[in-house]
């Protein structure tokens, strides 16, 4: 990046997390499911799929009722509020409401409400709920947050970008606490779209496997509570040291064949963290299981990490959950920090015969005992969106 001199970014604390995923109703179920190799993929039951090529996905079958019998609105908001309840059970948001920000990534927003709004007799609240940022405002109301409320639309990289923007809000003193993360709900709209693109596999999702044939979608919400480093006492999950995003400028629905945007994002995130590939202990890959994504991502990691690429454990958790779109990168960032805390790296479900074209140190077959200090998480999305996060384990 000639001509650009970077500043070291102030590290940001990730204090606690909350999640709801196809593996279970909270963060504990998410983590134990990953470590034990649970499969969150099932036949979709919430809406009709029998006319689609593929009717499976990471559907959350049951959500816990909200305290006080509150109603949550659309599915996306329900997922977000369920993740928020999990987060609030683990941490207290202690800041003036005007200093609490909400930053959420999503690929779909409240789009399922659009189908209801366009149906005969569709109601005005459905039309407003169809806006992408409606779930974020619903979460802000639940949290009593009156600071910035941002919705990030960088497709399936949005969860990572949301964490990066959240960190910038803290560094820029625009907030004292940020609730950041991502979400997306499975709905017919998105299933039909990916089905039409022939991106969904009829087989098992197999990231980086020579037999990989596509992805499956999932739904989830994942939130982290972020503060400036040292602003909050007590145990923390870890720190966000660097973030970068970049566009491919190549294609609307496919990654750049040379992975230029992803490589830029990886290098820039490491640069912002003032780290080198030698410092990286673990990579959480986007790893969708599509032939193109996994090959390009592996090539980028080999280029960006150099000789270290073959020594750094790499995993993908998308076979266990489905591709949870806006939630994916936030879940993967949380997984990185839980791996550090628990001393074990979840393995890549579905990966049995690593593709030589994706030659990396994949975590295959069983979890690997390791306590990564520095993790790199990569994400890609429609529209040529790329993002990378550099995370540091909490001090033990």
């Amino acid at each position, binding site marked *: 990046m000639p001509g650009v001199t970077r500043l070291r970014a102030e590290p940001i604390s990730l204090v606690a997390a909350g999640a709801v995923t196809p593996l279970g109703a909270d963060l504990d179920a998410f983590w134990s499911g990953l470590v034990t190799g649970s499969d969150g993929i099932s036949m979709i039951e919430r809406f009709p799929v029998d006319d689609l090529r593929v009717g499976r996905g990471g559907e959350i079958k049951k959500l816990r009722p909200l305290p006080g019998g509150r109603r949550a609105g659309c599915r996306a908001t329900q997922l977000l509020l369920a993740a928020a309840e999990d987060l609030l059970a683990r941490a207290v948001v202690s800041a003036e409401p005007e200093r609490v920000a909400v930053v959420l990534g999503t690929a779909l927003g409240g789009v399922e409400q659009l189908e209801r*709004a366009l149906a005969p007799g569709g109601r005005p609240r459905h039309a407003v709920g169809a806006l992408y940022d409606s779930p974020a405002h619903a979460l802000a109301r639940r949290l009593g947050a009156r600071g910035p409320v941002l919705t990030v639309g*960088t*497709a399936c990289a949005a969860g990572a970008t949301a964490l990066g*923007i959240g960190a910038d809000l803290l560094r820029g003193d625009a907030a004292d606490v940020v609730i950041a993360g991502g979400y997306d709900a499975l709905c017919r709209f998105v299933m039909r779209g990916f089905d039409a693109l022939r991106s969904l596999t009829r087989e098992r999702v197999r990231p980086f496997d020579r037999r990989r044939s596509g992805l499956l979608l999932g739904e989830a919400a994942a939130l982290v509570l972020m503060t400036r480093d040292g602003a909050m006492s007590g145990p923390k999950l870890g720190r966000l040291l660097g973030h970068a995003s*970049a566009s491919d400028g190549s294609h609307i629905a496919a990654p750049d064949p040379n992975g230029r945007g992803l490589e830029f994002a990886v290098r820039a995130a490491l640069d912002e963290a003032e780290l080198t590939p030698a410092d990286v202990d673990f990579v959480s890959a986007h790893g969708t299981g599509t032939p193109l994504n996994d090959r390009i991502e592996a090539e980028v990691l080999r280029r960006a990490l150099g000789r270290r690429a073959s020594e750094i454990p790499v995993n993908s958790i998308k076979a266990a959950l489905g591709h949870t779109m806006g939630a994916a990168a936030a879940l993967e960032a949380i997984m990185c920090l839980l791996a550090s805390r628990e001393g074990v790296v979840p393995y890549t479900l579905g990966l049995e015969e690593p593709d030589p074209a994706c030659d990396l140190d994949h975590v295959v077959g069983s979890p690997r005992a390791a306590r990564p200090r520095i993790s790199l998480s990569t994400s890609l999305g429609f529209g040529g969106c790329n993002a990378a996060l550099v995370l540091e384990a909490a001090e033990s």
Partner: protein
Amino acid sequence: MSVSVGPQAAGGNAATPTAAIGTTVAAVTVLTGWGHGIGALPADATRAAAGRAVIPLGRPTLEGDRFRRATRECLLGVAAVDALLRENDVSRDAVRGSSTALIYVTGGAYGASNQAFVVAESVRPASVGAGSARPGLTEGGLSEKRAGSVAGPLHFPYTAPSAMAGEVAIEFGLTGPYGILIGGAAATIDALWQATRLLAGGRCERALVLAVETFEECADLYARGRWLVRRPLVEAAACALLVPGALHARYDAPRAPSALETLARARAGETLACAPLIALALARDGGATASIGVTGEWRGRRAGLYWRQ
């Protein structure tokens, strides 16, 4: 007008490793349903609308086969950036590559593509599959004409807001820092602030903040949310170019609208995410360069950004 966009033009600030790097709004271009530039804005948008709910902006005619499938929103984004570069004598080569950041903002410009995708399914022949019929969404309530305007299932990638930013990135070869914020005018303030952060942090040499809003295809839907958006809804595409400079930006949450916010709304109408960029254009037109404050409101939240020397 000619604008220099390289680091030298900023007095070498881009290469100075200090957090005190300021910014300058080097150029702003505005396309609205009223015409090209702020000179086309009426004195009073409500009066000029004469009862019309939407003031539409036509589909730009752009050369190149790759625009064949692009949505109107995508084309408007490309047209706004193209106009900004041409009007300010900035070559495409000057912005191409990884040193230019692109931050795209919209409140609802994905609405048309999303609605088209939903409607396309609802009017397809029953023979597609008996299981496709969904309760509550039937052929009867939707117009064939509207459905006929969509390209079919492969239109799906264009339902993502990132498609609009993606088309701009492809057209101008932008491979640098990239952000997409969804919301109204407050989100554009957030985007402008993000751009100043990227510049101050040395993460780019210049930043394009682009906003696009279209309403025509979704006028019925917007009519249901009258408490959220005002009238007239004016389609717009606007772009600002930010470079390192002498002004320092302060991000705030003011309770009241700035004079520029009020002026932009009065003259342009409801342009959602485009409003703060229109306000910036009005400020520059009025000669304000050393001190600019813009605000924007959306869903009860107002954000402000104040540049001072």
